[in-house]
């Protein structure tokens, strides 16, 4: 039973969509429901000892599980296929942007309507393009929500659906906004698979600066460890 569960988890993890406990019970454990906790425990240990993978429950209410890599990072080639690698690149950039901007970024995927009659003169930085906007930033990298991307295809779908389903990102719509806006944050998988400090180091490396250059982000990252 334990081995069956291990195989089940490994295969289910291919799409990186979190695994439901209900599925585990229905397809593998079935009649041995009472021993569920024990079986899951053992499976977790096997995954760790044989594969160096950690089984993590990311949602204790809805009982969702993911597999993460528990081995120390090796230098050199990583076992990611081509398409996956490119997506991870985009994801890291988005996660970095979100963190450096204060853990939460708003944006509308649609271009904002021009203000009708401003009741007073808004300061320059508050007229579009909005400084905090995610898609505005991605636009600088030649990525547009409405257009097919040479590498990523439908980027809007990738970011707001695939990454969200995989729990890398959390996108929450903000009610009664016009045009409709959403809030973008790190998802639970992102929080398990990487750290704020790692991401800060990435940004620092890219910009040729020391991570402490951004004092408050650095303090927050250090506090998380």
């Amino acid at each position, binding site marked *: 039973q334990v081995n069956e569960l291990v195989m089940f988890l490994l*295969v289910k993890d291919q799409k990186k969509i979190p695994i439901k406990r209900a599925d585990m019970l229905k397809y593998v454990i079935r009649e041995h429901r009472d021993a569920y906790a024990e079986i899951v425990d053992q499976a977790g240990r096997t995954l760790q000892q044989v594969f160096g993978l950690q089984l993590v429950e990311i949602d204790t209410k809805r009982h969702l599980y993911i597999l993460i890599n528990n081995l120390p990072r090796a230098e050199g080639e990583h076992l990611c296929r081509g398409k996956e690698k490119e997506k991870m690149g985009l994801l890291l950039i988005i996660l970095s942007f979100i963190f450096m901007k204060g853990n939460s970024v708003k944006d509308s995927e649609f271009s904002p309507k021009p203000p009708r009659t401003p009741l007073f003169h808004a300061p320059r930085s508050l007229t579009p393009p909005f400084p905090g906007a995610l898609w505005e930033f991605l636009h600088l990298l*030649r990525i547009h929500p409405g257009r097919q991307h040479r590498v990523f295809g439908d980027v809007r779908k990738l970011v707001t659906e695939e990454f969200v389903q995989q729990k890398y990102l959390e996108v929450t719509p903000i009610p009664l906004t016009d045009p409709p806006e959403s809030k973008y944050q790190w998802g639970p998988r992102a929080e398990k698979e990487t750290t704020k400090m790692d991401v800060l180091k990435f940004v620092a490396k890219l910009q040729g600066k020391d991570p402490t250059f951004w004092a408050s*982000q650095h303090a927050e990252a250090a506090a998380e460890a």
Partner: protein
Amino acid sequence: ENREAMLNSKSNRLTEALEEANRLFDGVCRAREAALDAQFLVIASNIGKEKANELHSEMSAFDSTAFAEDLLTFMGINRTEVEDSDDSEDVPGGFLPSDAWQTMGKEASKYFRRAPTLHYMMGSFRSEPPVPKQRIERQKKASRGKAERAMPAQLKKMEESHQEATEKEVERILRILQTHFENDPNTPISFFDFVIDPNSFARTVENVFHVSFLIRDGLAKIKLDEDDLPIIEPIKPSEGGEEDSRAGARNQVVISLDQKQWK
């Protein structure tokens, strides 16, 4: 409207708007107006919440434009050429190489503890795979699905013929030996010329292995010629009977050949 203006921490517009709404509410006598007021409250409270958030997260200034520039540089952008496709609108000129995102991805994978995904090398054998695996296979891209469906068929064939593979090889070698002898019946072949593959040591060893079967089964024999070098020739079927009766004349020989000698 003016949402961003209200969010500005220095502005009191939110307070002003709330005060105005309060005043207006006194004049409300229709349900529709009350509904509008309720809507206003929702928006106002959202804005209030965000303002509060912004008070807490006073992050050190982060220049996202510079970050984008550095990312493009990292991905190998070529800034000397200017694109005149409609891609470049208000974006600074420059040409991203086709492997730009591969480069980015390679760097990015170092920052994630992502579990490598398991994929079967040969696909599923069973004609009725267990339900969870079937669901996943339906999700896979069509091309991959086809490849896996092709694989089980191939593998089954290989499994059946596993025993026969060696036999086939042996037969093949026998045929080669016989063909050579048909063409030139009186010239036995030097054993070494026969088995050695100048390009592959492994192949050579395989050849010796297969030839040993021929000898064992009495289909060929090895003799020493005038120079004491081994030569090999096939045994005609008519001689087969005699060979059996002279079983005692068979010898066991161990030939050793290492890579250096082979070279």
